[in-house]
């Protein structure tokens, strides 16, 4: 069963810029799913449409078995989001912010406070908990956003570059947490540019390019996929697959060089 089903999703921005063109995507329930693509491929557009903050021009979306329309918001009760812009009220402390988000999900106050304390401890934000979020580094803001995304124990996590700017120790802890959540039945849908991390962490990956779906596979099968029919050579890494599939439409593959270096 799929947790997210996207059919024929289309988004054209002003001046005719194509954000998404007939995108199809199925995200299996209970998987840690990597959503990849080069800059401007449409990853953030897809995530923002799933979050209901960008209007789609066409297409159907089903999340957790429910068809989602642009105006719907009840479906978000079971989803946690981390978007490109991670936090929204920066003149709050992390505690105030998490309590505010907890109240948005109608969490019981005592439970919200308990989870807030645990989250602050888990994300190592205790030292700065009395500072306003606006004083935090980009990585710390990302941690606050992640904490806000899981405070209500979501069934689906949609994350846009969740580990960007986060130090290696915390990143390891977050990756372990995501794996634990998936083991307990949560689905995680994350975009990233870090292909090594995605290959090690995710169960399945999809690649989009120029707003279109181009590749999907279980990560364990990537190294079994044949790269060259004639020699029966297989791919050695996700990076190799990525470079191959995003440059298949006639783009130059040779290494570019700068004239002055």
């Amino acid at each position, binding site marked *: 069963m799929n947790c997210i089903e996207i059919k024929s999703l289309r988004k054209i921005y002003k001046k005719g810029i194509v954000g998404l063109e007939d995108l199809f995507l199925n995200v299996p329930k209970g998987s840690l799913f990597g959503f990849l693509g080069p800059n401007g491929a449409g990853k953030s557009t897809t995530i923002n449409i799933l979050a209901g903050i*960008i209007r789609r021009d066409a297409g159907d979306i089903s999340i957790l078995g429910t068809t989602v329309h642009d*105006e719907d918001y009840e*479906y*978000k009760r079971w989803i946690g989001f981390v978007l490109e812009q991670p936090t*929204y009220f920066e003149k*709050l402390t992390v505690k105030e912010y998490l309590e505010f988000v907890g109240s*948005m999900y*109608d969490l019981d106050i005592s439970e919200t406070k308990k989870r807030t304390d645990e989250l602050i401890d888990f994300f190592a934000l205790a030292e700065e908990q009395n500072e306003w979020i606006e004083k935090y580094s980009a990585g710390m803001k990302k941690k606050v956003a992640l904490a806000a995304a899981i405070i209500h124990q979501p069934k689906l996590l949609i994350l846009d570059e969740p580990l960007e700017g986060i130090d290696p120790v915390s990143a390891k802890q977050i990756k372990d947490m995501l794996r634990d959540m998936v083991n307990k039945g949560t689905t995680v849908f994350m975009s990233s540019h870090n292909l090594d991390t995605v290959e090690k962490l995710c169960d399945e990956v999809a690649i989009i390019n120029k707003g279109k779906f181009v590749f999907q596979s279980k990560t364990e099968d990537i190294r079994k996929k044949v790269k060259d029919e004639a020699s029966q050579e297989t791919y050695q890494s996700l990076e190799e697959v990525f470079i191959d599939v995003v440059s298949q439409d006639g783009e130059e593959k040779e290494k570019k060089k700068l004239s002055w270096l």
Partner: protein
Amino acid sequence: MINQENLLRVCIHVRLLNRYTKPASLMPLVVLSILALKFTGAYYAIPVNPGISVVVINFLVYGFLFEDLFLGETNMKIFYFLYPIDLKKFTFARNFAGLLLMLVSVSVSVSLATIILHLTLEQISDAFLYFFVTFFGLLHFWNFTSIMFSRNSSSSKVFLFSALEILEILGASIPYFIMKLLSTGFFLCSSVIVVLGASWYVFSVPQTSRMLLRRKFDIIGRA
């Protein structure tokens, strides 16, 4: 209606409004206006209760902030629609926080005016009656202007919005002045305040939340 969750929401909105709009920073303007009333002798010349003039000063000074009651920065606009917010509860908490902050400011400035302009007890109670009767009407205007014209668009038309604000205050004051013409009875005034408060809760809060949802993509401005 009043439970721990709602109180927490109101507290957070008081903090947010206080930190983002910084109403305390405008207090010197209110004090200066009261002093101007005193030293220009305007409070002798104006044939109304000077306490009401003090409340009008508050509406003029803070109204400009509260015309952007909901929105403000782009990030906040995204927040309203990213989370499964019950926009009715949200509107209620935001409006109630506005009421509390305004009440603090009016209380401080009426106290100052009592010292500077020698207000009588009747003038003070009348000023508060005027505040409550007018505030609920103004809230409706502020909710509307905040959603229809966010700060980004209104800042370029400051003069137009200042004029609109004066009209809003005049419009919202009409029930009070009609009430004063009919009777000065405390019971009638209190009843009117209850009716206005109830109509704000029954009509304005749901209408505002529906308007927020309907104009979601225009507000986010990214569609």
